[in-house]
Each structure stands twice: as C-alpha cells, then as structure tokens.
C-alpha cells in the first residue's frame, strides 16, 4: 500500500528522471564535443607535444614562439596582415555592393523576388565548388576571365599565380560567393523601416543618395552590426576558399597565406610534410579565438551604441 505523500514523492522523482532523460543526449554531446575540447585547447597551448600526446608543460613558450620567435612569428604576422586586408576588402567590396543591391531590391521593381533568389544562389553552394570553379576561370591560358579580357583587347594576367593579384582574386571569389547574404540581411533591415518615414523623406526632397546615406543607413544599424561582426569572424577564420584556390601554403610564395591556413599547416602538416605540431597549433588557435572574441565583443559594444543613437 502506498500512502498519498509517498505517491507524490514518487511522481516527483519520475518527473525529475523524465527531465533528465530529455536533456541527457544533448548535454552529453555538448560536453564531450564542445565544452571539454574547448577547455582542453586552452590547456594544450601550454604543452610541448610528442605526436598526439602532451609531453611536457612549457609555460608560455608556444605563445612566445608564434608571436615573437623565428621562424613562427614572421608567418603569424604576415598571415594576420592578410586577414586584415581580406576583412577590409570584403567590407568595402562585398558588403558595400550588398548594401546597394539591397537598396535596389527595396524598390520592389518587377522581378525583385526572382532577383533575391538569384543573388542568394551562390551562397548555398559549397566553398569547394565555388573555389574550384573560379580557379578554372582564373586559369592564365584557358580561363574564362582572360578570355573575356581578350575580347575587349586587354591582356590577361596569371591571376592566381601572381603574388600581386592572387589574394585579390580569392577575395573577389569570396565576394561573388557571399554577396547575397549581407544583401538580404540589409534588405530585411530596410523592409522594417516604416513606409511613412521613407515617404516623408521623399516629400522633403531627399534623392536616392541622401535616402541611402542619411535616412536608411542609420536605421539599418542593427543589420550593419550583424554584417560587420559576421564578416569579421568569417575573415579571421578564412580557410576553405584560400585552401582550395591557393593550397595549404598560401601560394604563390605565401602571398595568400592567412591565419586559418597557417594554423592548419602547423597542426596537421601539409601534403609535403606530414609533421603535426599540436603545441604551437593550440597556441595559434587560442590566440585566434581570443582575438576574435575580444574584438567582436568590443565591436559589438560600439555598434550597439550606434544603433541606439540612431
């Protein structure tokens, strides 16, 4: 015989067990494959590795090496500089263009829905497909790009083979691949602006340029925040496109080397040398993680304040 109080207690236990059951698989996966690895990566950065095993605690030596000692440091800073170029170039070329496209789409001219679908199409393709496609197009002799230039009487270049143009060519490819994404984020922001605001500005005599720079731009600040932060994170994690188009070493001659490639090479080696160096790799990963986290957090604060002012 079970008394009522006992029955209530059993029911409570059963409910607790039920909740635990619901949470268990998710929590297990998150603990094993997010929390634990993340904590370990901070620990591993302080070790010298022997193959896959942390062999000796060496304090900050790995960090000192990758930031200030030859031969690591030169590559680190060289790669970081390229990441900065990539970020700046994408902000101007990709996101600037995206803003213009969004503004044009906001006018809801005939075919604007179809255009949204078209501009977003490359976004759904894998960076591997896009990278290889443009690598073939940029081929100096047989590529589409130089063939098109020849049609208008221009001499083409070995775009991916020339140190001066290789990074630019990959940045261009990235912009082509991704421009639809910021465009539609901006468009979503613009569509939230009330019609009255835009009409009022028009009646006050604002032309498109003023509308775009003075009226809409401050009002889409939340969209701009998202675009800036995502472009920043993407630029400093840049890996697939340069890997596919320029190889793990950032050819030619390191002209397209970025932190993502350098980290990958350090940790897992290249086809030429299969040497793994998990100690220095972890230090690079931790530094990249901290850099991205700190800058994003600061940028977010500044950008959010801008949103409120607007």
């Amino acid at each position: 015989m079970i008394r009522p109080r006992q029955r209530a207690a059993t029911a409570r236990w059963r409910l607790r067990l039920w909740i635990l059951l619901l949470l268990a698989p998710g929590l297990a996966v998150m603990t094993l494959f997010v929390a634990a690895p993340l904590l370990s990566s901070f620990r591993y950065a302080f070790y010298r590795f022997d193959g896959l095993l942390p062999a000796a605690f060496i304090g900050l030596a790995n960090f000192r090496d990758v930031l200030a000692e030859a031969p690591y440091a030169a590559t680190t800073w060289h790669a970081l500089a390229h990441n900065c170029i990539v970020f700046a170039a994408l902000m101007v070329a990709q996101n600037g263009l995206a803003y213009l496209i969004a503004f044009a789409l906001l006018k809801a001219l005939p075919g604007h829905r179809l255009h949204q679908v078209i501009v977003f199409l490359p976004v759904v393709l894998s960076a591997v497909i896009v990278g290889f496609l443009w690598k073939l197009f940029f081929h100096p002799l047989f590529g589409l790009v130089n063939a098109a230039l020849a049609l208008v009487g221009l001499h083409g270049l070995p775009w991916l083979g020339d140190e001066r143009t290789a990074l630019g060519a990959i940045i261009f490819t990235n912009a082509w691949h991704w421009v639809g994404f910021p465009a539609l984020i901006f468009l979503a922001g613009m569509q939230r602006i009330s019609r009255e605001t835009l009409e009022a500005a028009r009646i006050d005599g604002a032309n498109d340029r003023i509308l775009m720079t003075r009226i809409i731009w401050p009002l889409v600040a939340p969209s701009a925040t998202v675009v800036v932060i995502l472009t920043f994170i993407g630029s400093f994690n840049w890996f697939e496109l340069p890997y596919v188009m320029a190889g793990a070493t950032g050819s030619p001659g390191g002209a397209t080397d970025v932190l993502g490639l350098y980290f990958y090479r350090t940790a897992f080696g290249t086809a030429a040398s299969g040497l793994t160096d998990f100690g220095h790799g972890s230090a690079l990963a931790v530094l990249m993680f901290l850099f991205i986290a700190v800058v994003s957090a600061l940028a977010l604060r500044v950008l959010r304040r801008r949103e409120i002012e607007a």
Partner: protein
Amino acid sequence: MHHGERGKNLLIQPLLILNAVIMLYPLFVMVLSAFKTNAEIFASPFALPDSLSLVNAARMWNETSFVRYLLNSIAVTATSIAAIVVFGTMAAYAIARYQFRLSAAVFLFFLSGLMVPLKLAIIPLFIQLDTLGLIDTRLGLILIYVAMGLPSSVFILTGFLRTLPGELEESARIEGASELRTMLSVMLPLARPAMVIAAIQNALPIWNDFFFPLVFISSDRLKTLPQGLTVFMGEYNTDWGVLFAGLTLAALPITLVYVVLSRQFIAGLTQGAIK
C-alpha cells in the same frame, strides 16, 4: 510614384539585371562546359557546346567515386540533422515546458555553443575522437556536426515551445496522458515549423562542410562530396570537361533543393544571422 522616380528606376533595373548576369553567368558557363570537350572549352569558351554529350558526366559517374561521395554526404547530413532536431527538441522541451532548478544554467550552456567557433577547437577534438576510436569514421563526423548544430536548434525550439499555451498540456494531463504522450502527440506537432527552420539552418553548413572531413576522414570510401571534389580535381586536372561536369553534378542536388525551397532557405539562413 513620382515621375522622376520612374526615370531613375529605368536606370536601376538594368543594373539589377547586370548583377543577375554576373551571379548566374559563371554557373551557366560551368554547366555548358560540362558538355564540352577540352578542345571546345579552350577554343570557344563562351560558345554553346557542339552537342549535349553526356560523356563527361558519364566518366565522372563511372570512373570516380562520385556516387559514393554523394551517398556519404546524404547519409552524414541526414543523420546529423535527424539527431540535431530530435536531441534539440528534447532539450528545448525540458527547458521550455518544465521548471527545474538548473533550467537557466542548462539553457546558457547550450547557448554558449553559439559563440564558439568549433573549428578552432579542432586539435582537442582530434585528440578526443582519437581517444574514442572515432577518427576516420562517419560517426565521429556526425557527432561533431550534432554538437555544432545543437546550440542554434535548442535556441530556436526553446523560444518557440515557450510560446505554446499551457492549457494544452494541462488538459492532456487531466485526461491522464503521460508526459511522453503529451509531448509527442499534443505539443510537438505544433512545433513543426520551428523544427523545419532548425533543420534547414543546420543542413546547409553540414552538407557544404569541408574542414572537418579534411581533418578527420582519410579513407576514400568515407569521403563526403566537397572533400571528394578535391580528389578528382587533382586526378583530372588536365581534363577540363570532366572537371566542369564534376562541379556541375556536385552543385546540382543543393541547387535543386534551393530552387524548390528558396523562400525557406533565405528566411532560415538570414533569420539565423539576425536572431
């Protein structure tokens, strides 16, 4: 609309069309070139192919492991998405519909995964998978994708499940339905739209992922499509027609899905960013 407006729109429309051409023409050339011989590609890159010959596609299909890569990608993506939606819904349901002491902490624990670029934890993940004997297995890859997808799906589903009215559960309970029954037959059918968004948002990055297979998968028979592409881009590097056929075939499945579900894709992916 004002008169000056209309004149300006006449200017904007051609620019939009030009932009559409820039976005589509490279893909158009990719498809055309898939039907061409090497000689045709080099001699007349812009022209239409002489014939709609499927020789290149057939070589891709028969001589390479393309089909295997494709099936691997389908299996890995489908399993990962199923696990993400099921585990994500379970966790979200517990967080959204029950009150327990650590509820807020558990929710935050899941959300913190949104901030973590898992790629940068690749070294400890490698060691972790190695310890578990999961390097070079589909399961290892799937588990990582599930970890990658859970935070956003828990976020989306918790938000949605919280909005469901409590009376529904109450009446089911009064009728004597068990917690499991209430969840499965009363509450979850209502959450289907949120599950679809969570699934689409995660399916694309998993389907397109190249980095994790690059690090974890080395057996040819386990490779996914993006990773497999790098294999035959190396093998056929002088046979451009076959290369274009490979790229076209690789782009085809996701493009078809996108054309059918473009609205859901665009909404799912841009909302994921805006949140």
